Structures are given as structure tokens and as C-alpha cells.
């Protein structure tokens, strides 16, 4: 079987396996599954880089009857990023979710849920069938909601409930769009949809799917579920919730718009979307600025970052052909999403360390931690560099390309939003950083192993390296890049 299949199956099998082994073996089995999935992702990446997009027909059936899995640059890049983050999360969770710390239920529930999330993510990254995507997305949402509820506290349950409501509503909207599409064209395969005869209902279908996906992505004004949910979950869970889960619906959004129905896109809708994205950038930034809890700052930062991805939609096109030096907004946005995933997971993992080792939950508790736990503070700082879009991080590179595209497209106000968002990010991330750096001799922290501190540092460093050595990742992302992304919507 090809790595493409393993990418989906390995975490799924892992999820089943952890359920049947004794509780104390769960982490080891999960780590084994994680290693297998990471290997599959890397092998797939090597294949894609060498041979171009890989395709698998499940059961040998061709669309519209069968389901096709296809790994292009975009999906594989996300899968690799997810594999890195997930491996880091698994390593961190070994400590964070030890039964004596997190409680037996959370310790038990975390591993299968984590592997389920991973399986769902990988499914979404490589699926090309609208309904298959729906199933993947549902699996993802349900596992994610369960992860949020894992802590079992009142806040956690309320947050999970809220999350579930938004997720379900989003699913329904998406499903409605899928149904409309199918009734109009009789197929849900993207390649076939691209070649379809446009129907009148296409716009409505696309609108419904988009709205549903936006609710799941937590785009403003549907972001309210995200911060409490991410803050309530155990830190490793938050890391993947914030870094990866919104990316799944984002990838679907990208696929639907650029690969299935680029022709249905219209300027007005694009501007509505990008307008919401712009508001999200500012709103999320302002909210992050007024938070007291470190996890809420990080969570609202996700709200803001998600806005950038949506802003990119109207900015695409015209890149290589008109401006040979530019990779364009689509690539830039993907790049931004990848580095966001790495940096954001690093941040949540660091916040977890601070909480579990020093009991630090609020910003003011962070005083003196830079001296007590220098590696984790450094990891946070590196991640902050990425999130604020400062060079030489991947965040900068992505934002740079998007801003350039905004100018080329004549939509410079969006570039202004991105600049303002970057400044806001610098401002809200400065608060924890300054607190970390302040002096406090009285701080006392439980010892934290180097490996545990090294995991977030490695993830944050990966986000920086993505910027320093960006040429290779860029050409990788471009593999199988849809024509619509080059020409614009």
C-alpha cells in the first residue's frame, strides 16, 4: 500500500489499538502510531516532490461511483505539518496527560481522540469528494468536541457544547450545499465538478458550503466558540485544536473554491468573505490584547490569524504570469497557514508547560519564567515572531507574498489590514513576553525535562526555518496547484 493510504489508515488503526491495550501502554502505542503516520507523511512528501501528485482510487472504483484520494502539494504539505505537530503533541501529552496529572478519564480519552483527529485531518487533506470531506470533517469535529470536553469542568463542558452547536450547524449548511450540488450535477468528485456544465444553483450551493465551513473554521463572527474551547482543553489538545483543526475546513474551503467551482465565484462574495476576514484579523487582535489568560491570548490570536487565510481569496491570481517574481496570494496563504500551525502548537505546548510546572495561567503569573524556563520562553518568543509576521519566519514570507498580491490586485486596503494585524499581534504577544522577561525571584517551578521543553522549541524553530529556507517548500506547495489559484477567481 502506498504512503497515501497509510497516512489515513495508520492513525485510524492506532486509535483502535489504543482502546484495546492496557491504559499504561496507551502512550507507547499512540506514539508508535504517530511514528508510523509521520513516516507515511514524509514518504508521501518525498513521492510527491519526486513524482508529482499521487492518486489512489479506493477499491479500484472510479468517480463518480468510487472515491478518489489525491495527494497534491497543498494536501501533503498540510499532512506533513500536521504530522510534525501531532508528533510533538504526542510527546508533550505523554507528560501532560499522565493519569496522575490529568485524571484517568482524560488520560484514557485523549489518545484515541487524538489519533482520530489525526486520521480525520489526513482524510480531509487528501480527499477530493465533497461527501467524503463531509464525513472527514464530521469525524474531526466530533473528536475535537470530545477533546474539549475532556477536562470535564463546567467551563469545558459549556465550551464543548457551544463548539458542538457551531460545528453541527456548520455541518448542516455544508451538507445542504453538497446536496444541492449533487442534485444539480450528479457527482461530488471535484475533478468532475470542475468540468461540469454550470447550473443556476451552483452559487447557492457554494454559498451554503462556504458559510458552513466558515462556521467550522471559526471565522468572525462565528469565532466565539473557539477561544473558550481552546482554552478549556488540556494544552496538548489545544495545540492541535488551534493549530490543525481549523486548517481542515480551510483546506476544504480552498478545494471547493479553487478546484471544484472556481467559475461560480463572484467578486461580491469574495469581498464579503475577505471583508469578514479583515474584521477577524482586527477583532481577534483586539480581543487578544484585552485578555488576561495566556491561553485565551493564544486562542484569540488564532481567531485573528484565520482572518488572513480568508483575506487571500480575492487576492489570488495573476501571480506568475504577470509578476514572475511573485508566488501569489494562494501560495502565500498556504505558507502562512503552515507556519501558523507550527507556531501556534508550540505556543500552546509552552503554555501547558507553564501551567503544569509553575501553575501559571494568567499573564501576570508569567513573571520570571524566562529565567526559570529559558528554553520554553525562547520557544514562545520564536513562535511570537512567526505569528507577528516578522522576518525571517514563515509567517513573514507568507504575509509578504499576500501583501504583494494585494498590491498587484489593486486591493491594497487588505495589505493595510495585514500590516495592522501584524502590529496588533506584536502588541498582544508583547504582553506575555514582557511578563516573561520581568524579574521575579520568588518564582518556583517544578523541574521540566529538556525533551519536553525542546518539543515546542523545535516546532517554533520549524516555523522560522520555513521562512529561512523557503524556496523548497514553495516549489513543493506549487505541485498540483490549481489553475484557478494562478489565474485568480
Amino acid at each position, binding site marked *: 500500500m502506498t504512503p497515501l493510504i497509510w497516512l489515513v489508515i495508520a492513525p485510524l488503526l492506532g486509535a483502535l489499538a489504543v482502546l484495546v491495550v492496557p491504559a499504561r501502554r496507551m502512550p507507547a502505542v499512540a506514539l508508535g502510531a504517530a511514528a508510523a503516520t509521520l513516516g507515511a507523511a514524509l514518504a508521501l512528501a518525498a513521492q510527491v516532490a519526486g513524482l508529482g501528485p499521487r492518486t489512489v482510487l479506493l477499491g479500484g472504483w472510479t468517480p463518480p461511483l468510487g472515491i478518489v484520494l489525491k495527494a497534491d502539494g497543498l494536501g501533503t504539505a498540510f499532512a506533513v505539518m500536521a504530522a510534525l505537530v501531532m508528533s510533538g503533541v504526542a510527546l508533550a501529552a505523554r507528560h501532560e496527560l499522565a493519569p496522575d496529572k490529568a485524571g484517568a478519564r482524560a488520560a484514557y480519552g485523549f489518545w484515541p481522540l487524538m489519533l482520530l483527529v489525526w486520521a480525520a485531518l489526513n482524510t480531509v487533506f487528501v480527499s477530493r469528494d465533497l461527501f467524503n470531506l463531509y464525513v472527514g470533517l464530521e469525524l474531526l469535529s466530533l473528536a475535537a468536541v470530545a477533546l474539549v470536553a475532556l477536562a470535564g469542568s463546567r467551563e469545558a463542558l459549556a465550551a464543548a457544547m457551544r463548539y458542538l452547536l457551531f460545528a453541527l450547524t456548520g455541518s448542516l449548511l455544508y451538507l445542504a450545499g453538497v446536496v444541492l450540488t449533487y442534485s444539480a450535477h450528479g457527482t461530488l468528485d471535484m475533478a468532475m465538478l470542475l468540468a461540469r456544465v454550470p447550473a443556476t444553483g451552483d452559487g447557492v450551493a457554494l454559498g451554503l458550503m462556504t458559510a458552513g465551513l466558515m462556521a467550522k473554521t471559526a471565522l468572525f463572527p462565528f469565532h466565539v466558540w473557539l477561544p473558550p474551547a481552546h482554552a478549556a482543553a488540556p494544552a496538548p489538545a489545544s495545540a492541535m485544536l488551534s493549530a490543525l483543526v481549523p486548517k481542515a475546513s480551510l483546506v476544504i474551503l480552498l478545494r471547493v473554491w479553487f478546484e471544484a467551482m472556481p467559475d461560480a465565484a463572484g467578486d461580491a462574495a469574495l469581498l464579503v468573505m475577505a471583508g469578514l476576514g479583515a474584521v477577524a484579523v482586527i477583532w481577534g487582535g483586539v480581543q487578544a490584547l484585552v485578555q488576561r489568560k495566556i491561553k485565551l491570548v493564544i486562542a484569540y490570536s488564532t481567531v485573528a490569524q484565520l482572518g488572513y487565510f480568508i483575506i487571500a481569496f480575492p487576492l489570488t491570481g495573476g501571480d506568475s504570469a504577470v509578476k514572475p517574481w511573485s*508566488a501569489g496570494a494562494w501560495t502565500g496563504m498556504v505558507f502562512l497557514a503552515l507556519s501558523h500551525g507550527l507556531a501556534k502548537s508550540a505556543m500552546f505546548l509552552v503554555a501547558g508547560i507553564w501551567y503544569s510546572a509553575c501553575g501559571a495561567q494568567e499573564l501576570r503569573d508569567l513573571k520570571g519564567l524566562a529565567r526559570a524556563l529559558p528554553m520554553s520562553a525562547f520557544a514562545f518568543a520564536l513562535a511570537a515572531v512567526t505569528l*507577528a509576521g516578522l*522576518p*525571517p519566519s514563515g509567517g513573514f*514570507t507568507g504575509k509578504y507574498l499576500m501583501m504583494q498580491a494585494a498590491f498587484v490586485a489593486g486591493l491594497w486596503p487588505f495589505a493595510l489590514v495585514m500590516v495592522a494585524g501584524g502590529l496588533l499581534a506584536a502588541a498582544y504577544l508583547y504582553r506575555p513576553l514582557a511578563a516573561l522577561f520581568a524579574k521575579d525571584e520568588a518564582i518556583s517551578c517544578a523541574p521540566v525535562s529538556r525533551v519536553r521543553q525542546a518539543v515546542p522549541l523545535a516546532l517554533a524553530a520549524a516555523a522560522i526555518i520555513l521562512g529561512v529556507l523557503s*524556496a523548497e517548500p514553495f516549489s513543493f506547495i506549487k505541485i498540483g496547484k490549481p489553475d484557478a489559484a494562478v489565474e485568480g477567481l
Partner: protein
Amino acid sequence: MNAFLPVLILMTSLLPAGVIFFIPQASHTLRNTINIGAAVAKLALVAWMLLAVAGGASYESVLPLAPGLVLLLRVDALALLFISLSATLWLLTTIYAIFYLGNKAELSRFFGFFSLCVAATTGLALSGSLISFFLFFELLTLSTWPLVAHKQDQASLAAARQYLMFALPASASLLWAIIWLESYTGPVLFTDPPDLSGIEPWKLRTIFALFIAGVGAKAALVPLHGWLPSAMAAPAPVSALLHAVAVVKAGAFGVVRVVFDVFGASDMQALGVDVPLALLASFTILWGSWRALDQGEVKKRLAFSTVSQVSYIVLGAALAGPLAMVGALAHLVHQGLMKITLFFCAGIYDERAGVKKIEGLNGLGQAMPWTSVCFSLGALGMIGLPPLAGFVSKVYLGLGAIEVGAPWVVAVLIASTLLNAAYFLPLVYRLWFLPLGEGVEVSAQAESGAIGLIAPAVVTAAASLGVGLLAASAVSPLGWASLIVARGYLE
């Protein structure tokens, strides 16, 4: 080899930075060896390159990032001017800092960021494209922050915060300008100035203003100068770094790059932005000096003096004539030498005599003669007393101003000279002519055992005399600046 050299010279400070972070606090010898070894290696490399570049060589390394993001490192005469300044002063400041900080806390963090800061400055100087300039410009911002906040007390953190509050919006402005411009022209390489002919003038003017706002905050152009005086809360070696080696110099250097290698002098004049820039620089020169008069703390007075002096460089760039440019580039080095001397000395006064306020300087000349002679030389040089370094810059700036038909600049220079005298001479006077203040106890051995602090100051003070005295020789900063301008204008 040629493609390797610029990277190598960057690595001489980048690698130590990476290593030093992980050296345990107690391993002084190891840390100091790496620090000084790297600085010496860099200096040697720079010296070797100076010879080669004087002979017409140039070196280039390209690291393509994403499309449009060309990381280009290039050693040319202008880059070398800045690098040789920063490399020399880095070595001296490192020695000074080792003795200044002694056995204080978090030395590895300090020296790690210190080296990183110098690496950023080096990269900035070497940048051959606008975007690589921006990369290192930001790296500089980020690596300086922990240095400013190093003491981790309230004042330092506030200063560091203020620094970012100016630096980050400025970076945003710079980025905005870069992207806007490059959306028309594609990636801008300094060797190949972009063709601006197709772009509407108002857009170009706005872009220019954004550029200047971007680099101007680092260069402490009024009204973007507020961070600099507060940043004196940092330890003295950091102030030296900020004021003489890295940060404000990076801003001034940026102005030079923007004016000459992005817009070009003639385009700038055609757009009519040269006079506003010159006016802004002039205003900064006067305002900085003005505010310096009122400062009761030695380091604050020096900081406002920097605000004023760095704008000489901006002024020279704005005037854009060959002679003014020579003056500006020479001043880049001259100001660095003089100001670092002053900050070294201010640090010694603080460290050895506990003196922060200018009243405290009273009578220190007798107790601390070496320091005070160096301080006096630096101060007199700042005033522009011949034959110290400041005089040479002023002459060339003045000549350049008249050359391009802006004789009013001479009046600015004169007014600035008078103001400089008004705020520096009282300090010198206090040192030598007033009795020690009531209840001030300065041991007669205040300078003994401080050779590591005094020696760097003596070297820079002697250098600021030397570069003025031998200004006409080809190896002086002035000579090198003339070479740069001659090459630039011949192309």
C-alpha cells in the same frame, strides 16, 4: 570563494550568537574567548576585504527564498564602511562589556543577543536587496529588545517596550513601502536601481515617505526619536551599541540606501522630496540639540545628542550631492567613534563613581583623568572642534550643502555647533574646573583595575582624533567615503 565570503563574515557573528546562548553562566573563559575570538576573526576578515575591495573586488552571495524574496549579500565599498565600523566597535564594546558586566546575571543571554545584534548589523550592511535589508532590519529590532530590557527592572522593560512601540510600526511602514514599490518594479537590488518612470509621482512620494518613516524611527528622526532617550536605561555597553554601532546607524544607513540605491539622487530631487527630508533632518538636528540642553542625566544628554548627530547623516543623504554624501558617510563612522567614546566614559563614571547626573561630574577630571580626557575628546569632537572627527564631517556636509544650492544648511550646521557647544562644554567644564560635589567620595583609585573599561575608550578617543587628523589620507573614513562616492558617481 567569492560567493562564500559575505556569508562567512555574517557567520563570524551569527555562529557565536548561537553558541553563546548555551554556555553556562559560570564558564566565563569559554564565553569570553568565543566572543573576542569571533570579533577578532571578523575584524581580520574585514581588514582583508578592505584591501581587496579597495582594489576593485566585490563579493556576492545569493540565497533565493520564496519568489520575490532574494536574500542577497554583497560586499561593496559602502557595506564595508559600515562593517568595518561595526566590527571594530564590536570588538571594543565586547571587551568593555566583559569588564562592565563582570559577574552579573544572565551573561550568556546578554552576549548571545549581543552577537546576534552585530550579526544583524552586518547582514544589514551586506544586504544587496531591499528585502534582505528588511530581514536584517527586523532581526536587529528583535535582537536589540532583550538587550535594552536586560536589567529586567521596571525602567528597562518600559524602555524596551517603548523601543518596540516605535520600531515595529516603523518596520510595518518600511514593509509597506517595500511591497508597494516592488509591486511595480519587482525585487529591488541595490546594484540595479529600479526604473521608477512608470509610477505616478504621488505614489512615489508616499512610498518615499513610508520608507523614511520606516528607517527614520531607527535613525531617531524627530518625531520618531522618543525611544532613544528612554533606552538609556540599558547597561552602558548596550547604549554604546544602540548609539554608535548598530541601531541608529542602521537607520541612517537605511536612509542612505533608500536615497541612493532605491530612488537615486536625481529621482529623489525630481520628486521634490529631497528638501522636505533635509528640512526634517535639520529640524531633528536642532531639536535634538535643543532638548539635550535640558537633560540632567549624562546618558540622556548623550542620547539627545545622538538624535541630533545621526541626522547629519540623513541630512547629507538628503542633500544628495557628492560632497554632502562624503560628509554623511564619513560622519557615519565619525559619530560612531565619538559617541561610543562618550558612552564608554559615561558607563565608567556610572560604574566606578556612581555618577549619573551631570552635577556628579564635578571635579572628576582629577580623580579619573583617563576617562575624563577621553570624554572631553569625544565631547569636543561632537562640537566639531578641529581637527577632531566631527569637524571633518561638518566641513564636507557644509561644502556639499552649498554645492547643491542649499546654503541654509550651513546655518543649521552652525546653529547645531553652537548648541552642541552649549550642552557639551558645561560637562567638560564640570569635569575639570569645578570642585568635587559635596559629600561625593571618589576614591583616587577609581580608575585602577578598570583598564578593561578604559582601554576601549582610549582607543576610540584616539581614533576620533586620528581620523580627523589624518582625514585626507586614503585609508581614513573620509578617504573611504570619497572612494564610495567616486565609484557611485562614476557608475
